């Protein structure tokens, strides 16, 4: 109960003072009171490297598709001249629908993976068993 009340008091402090950011070094209440949540530099570095791999990997796929479409236009006659649905060529279908679906699917995949990596690699200390009597 005490921890809960202290946390709620911090919310009120932030609202009242208009502190700039949770980890502000402008003198806001958060800077001095790191509290129960913290990250170890080694954990952050490992998580950063993994998330960077996820981002670069997904960006490479994104780049291949975005650059691939104009390249196909210049090199493969069927891509622009063929007909897929009615008068729509594969190039038209890709630009009118396919790219938006691709962007969304890629975004969902990258966000899910990045969130999962951060959740697994950071904040481990908060998942360790705690003494229940603290809250009583």
């Amino acid at each position, binding site marked *: 109960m005490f921890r809960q009340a202290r*946390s709620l008091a911090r919310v009120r402090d932030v609202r009242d003072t*208009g502190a700039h*950011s949770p980890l502000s070094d402008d003198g806001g209440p958060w800077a001095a009171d790191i509290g129960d949540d913290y990250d170890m530099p080694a954990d952050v570095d490992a998580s950063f490297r993994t998330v960077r791999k996820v981002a670069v990997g997904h*960006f490479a796929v994104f780049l291949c598709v975005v650059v691939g479409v104009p390249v196909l236009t210049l090199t493969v006659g069927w891509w622009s001249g063929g007909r897929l649905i009615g008068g729509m060529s594969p190039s038209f279908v890709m630009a009118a629908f396919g790219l938006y679906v691709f962007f969304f699917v890629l975004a969902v995949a990258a966000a899910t993976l990045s969130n999962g990596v951060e959740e697994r690699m950071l904040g481990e200390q908060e998942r360790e068993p705690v003494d229940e009597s603290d809250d009583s």
Partner: protein
Amino acid sequence: MTAASVIALGVLLLAVTVLAIVLRPGRASTLEFYLAGRRVGVATNACAICGDYFSAASFLGVAAAVYVSGLDGLWYAAGFAAGFVPVLLFVAAPLRRFGEFSIPDFLGRRLGSDRVRLIAVCVVQLIILSYLVPQAVGSGITWELLVGEGVFGLTPYATGVVLSTVAITALVVFGGMRGTTWTQAVQFLLLLAAFVWLAVVVLASGFSYPDAVAELDAEPLANPVLSDGEWGLATEPNRLDPGAPATFGEPGGRYGPFGQLTLMVTLVMGTAGLPHIMNRYFTSPTGTAARMTTVWVLGLAGLFYTLAVLLGTASRSLIARAVPEEPWLAKLTVDGVLRVPEHAPLVLGRIFGGEAGLGFIAIGALIAVMSTIAGLLLASAASWGHDVYERHINPAASQRQAVWAGRGAVIAVAMFSAALALGLRPDSLTALFPSIVATMVTWAFALAGSALAPVFILAIWWRGTTSRGAGAGMITGAVTAIGMFASATLVADKGAGEVLLAPTIVAAPLAVLVTVIVSSRTPTPKDLDRLWLRLHGTAADRRATRLARLTIVGVNGDRSGR
């Protein structure tokens, strides 16, 4: 435009203003005024970002580009949407986790340099003005075409510029980020509703999308040109196959071998450097929420641009058929093709919904302009009010003084952009640029993608980035982009002109190279480890999530206890 439409527009403006006043910041705090207290939810922020991002260029311009150029016009829409993929992968979450108020503030803190902050302020203001002026011009043109009458002795064009500027300035001054967020979210939903309605009535009339493309593709693409005082249709040459005519469904109507790629790179990189969009990420409660907001934005952008492309195609197909039955189209068209392609969605609205349909789509166009102006003014206010006034002019300013400095900056920037828009009478520049609005918006993307985005992404992902490197990179990107863009006015938009008009493909790599070279010879900030924890750690996210849960538990507990 009918009296009913004018009344509807007036009611809409009034509703938006009331919403802004009702949701105005409760207390004089910069955190409330610029960032809505950092408590904007994922869905609300996604809608607000869409309202911010989808300007007249998206609402009228995409359908117009498809109408004029066929398949090549689709790349504007694809590029606008694609821009959010790098934002999601590289920017959204770490930017929010680091906090701060604006891009210059972020760079100044991350690199520990006031000099970098000031360089970034200059670049940001250039981008904002490049984006703001064409929006004001767009509102003037829309008013001129749809209302056709001025007030207080002003011309219709000037009336549109002045009224939209005054309305949005009032909204931003009183509403701050909180009021602007909600009005932008509502405005986006109205924009989407306008497109959904139009698409539904068009498809319900028996329009077949694939068959229309086949039909349009059967004959050469021709557009109106004014020659010797006479309007006539001229066949568009195929830029990929010299000597052959362009067709609607095949590439070559607008771009040569490099044009499509250079445009995509400019739009993709530019989005990550747009200050009014990036500032929105600071309003999310956590980095994870900022990331998920971008996923929503990509979904909504996909839906919006799919409809815009459909309507551009439908306009090309259906307007020509409607000319014999709709006499009012005669003065707007040449042999069934619109003289001004931006009229396409408006004309389609009138064909299928009469005057009310035209009014609905026209209101959508004005909303698109106004919501973007609001976002740009707030970004400008954050830059002048926070990055310059609070940081340099009056570091001891109280919260109230800082908020009023931001409000003053909003008014000053709005007046300046309106004055520029009034001076840049678009028809006086027709000889220089085919479309001053489109040219200036592309310029804003090019500058953002060349000067800000590369440095911004490096500062987030490369520990070795230094203040001197970032400063040199921003200056190199900006100068290269400005130089290439200025050169483009001397060269036609073919061959090298395609690269000069969309200079990011050259300027951004150059900015990266200069940043890396200079950074590798200069020292990094002393407290880099602490900054890195703040950028890529999730402790603040977890704390915010836990406190939110505790607050909900507390509120529910209070309710159940009563």
